């Protein structure tokens, strides 16, 4: 079931010039939301923005009827989201898509590695929190260009161990997530990843080589977000498949990536 409603902005925190964190409240009970699902945000008063903007659910505070959206400011549409002020309304279609799979309850001893880059870390916090609540021990491997691009580290650290890479080496190991030593030192039982496509492909390649099940969250360009327009398709074993309804999370075995 999908919903369409206005949410109230209760906080909009600029994290740096390229990111903001929106906290939104609904005046009714929240429906069930899965980590990996996203919302389609309607952009008002931005003449050059026509379509909604798909944004991952960063966290859910069910008791407060709140969700968090981590927004990367890419163009005028996301700039408009960054300029929303407390008390303003934001119209969302929610929740959308199929989320990450949660391992069976008897697998709580497993090593679950959540690998994110850039704004791709957004759904991994919600995923990590959900896994922890269900008795799992998630670990995070987060990559960014520089120290300043690493966001919400305290929030991730509150959920599980955090490993870091930056391209300039300003914090954590220097390089890309796919080169981090944790990948050679431990063998994860399951990998979840979200971030730039080259990063996810490198992670998928690693997972495949080491026979580790792996799910990726895609961010194909999208129009409707509800499976009507067929614009956001990814080639899968089932043919051209809508990322908005059949994803955004896919097992790498479903994809036809040359890895």
């Amino acid at each position, binding site marked *: *079931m*999908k*919903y*369409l409603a206005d949410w109230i902005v209760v906080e909009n925190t600029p994290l740096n010039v390229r990111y903001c964190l929106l906290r939104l409240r609904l005046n009714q009970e929240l429906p069930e939301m899965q980590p990996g699902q996203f919302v389609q945000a*309607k952009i008002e008063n931005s*003449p*050059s*923005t*026509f*379509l*909604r903007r798909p944004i991952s659910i960063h966290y859910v505070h069910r008791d407060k009827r709140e969700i968090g959206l981590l927004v990367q400011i890419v163009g005028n549409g996301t700039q408009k989201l960054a300029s929303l002020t407390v008390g303003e309304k934001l119209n969302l*279609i929610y929740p959308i898509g199929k989320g990450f799979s949660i391992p069976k309850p008897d697998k709580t001893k497993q090593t679950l590695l959540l690998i994110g880059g850039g704004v791709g870390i957004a759904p991994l916090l919600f995923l990590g929190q959900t896994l922890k609540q269900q008795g799992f021990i998630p670990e995070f491997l987060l990559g960014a260009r520089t120290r300043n691009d690493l966001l919400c580290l305290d929030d991730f650290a509150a959920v599980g161990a955090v490993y870091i890479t930056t391209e300039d080496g300003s914090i954590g190991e220097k390089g890309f997530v796919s080169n981090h030593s944790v990948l050679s030192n431990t063998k994860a039982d399951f990998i979840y990843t979200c971030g730039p496509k080259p990063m996810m492909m490198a992670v998928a390649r690693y997972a495949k080589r080491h026979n580790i099940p792996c799910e990726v969250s895609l961010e*194909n*360009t*999208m*129009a*409707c*977000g*509800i*499976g*009507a*327009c*067929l*614009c*956001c*398709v*990814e*080639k899968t074993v089932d*043919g*051209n498949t809508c990322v908005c309804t059949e994803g955004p999370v896919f097992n790498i075995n479903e994809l036809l990536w040359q890895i």
Partner: protein
Amino acid sequence: MADLTVKIGQLTLKNPVLTASGTFGYGLEYADFFDLSEIGGIVVKGTTLHPREGNAYPRMAETPAGMLNAVGLQNKGVDYFVSHIYPAIKEINTCMIVNVSGSTIDDYVACAARINDLEKIPAIELNISCPNVKQGGMAFGTDCASAAAVVKAVRQVYNKTLIVKLSPNVTDITKIAQAVETEGADAVSLINTLLGMAVNTETRKPVLSTITGGLSGACIKPVALRMVYQTAKAVKIPVIGMGGISCAKDAIEFIIAGATAIQIGTYNFIDPTISVKVAEGINEYLERHGFSSVQELTASLQV
């Protein structure tokens, strides 16, 4: 409450608002948002005789006040439609119209004949105007003789309401409209998307995998409105207007310009409930201006 019913061929629509093919899936995609029976009709995704994978990703580019698409009629074919989709949509209590496309006249005929047998599908919209397929599609709709030929052939096997969807990518759309009217079309719907293009300046590559694609959304409304106005004067059959309708006022403009009914397309993506809002807005307008029926408003332009 004004009388919102309109007649298109053998159909009586409860109100003049339909949703446009390719923007509303099979209707079910929107069932979470409002009661589908409140709109006049739903034109479902383009259906072809054989399954089509559509074009490669990327298929979409946002533009100011619109978008380009190059989906390329991805669908699972008419057999799949009949066996899997029709059973799921036949109870939707509004006019369910199937958009039919093809690469050859024989394909159009075979597909239309299959759908003619479906009790709860009272009409088809013949798509001779898709700009995103290499063969067929728009090629049939940009030439009077081929447009006439495909309509003539389909008319032989299809005895319910036949709507023909026209391409704006022509020199004179009224000539195509007259050609299909002569061959027995019950109505024309226009416009399909305008052929357009977008370039990524960083990579110097086209944004769309197909280089060109179809432009839709608010930006095309003035062009669509002009074509509806011209076509409505040139034919006797009803004209269904579409192109960039985003609110009731837009829809009313099309009706005043000559449209008997209207379709809402791309704006469904921005507001999934826009079609029912437009139906309500048309009623409010009619009451405010003292019209007892929407039919009085059609082609009422004061020049």
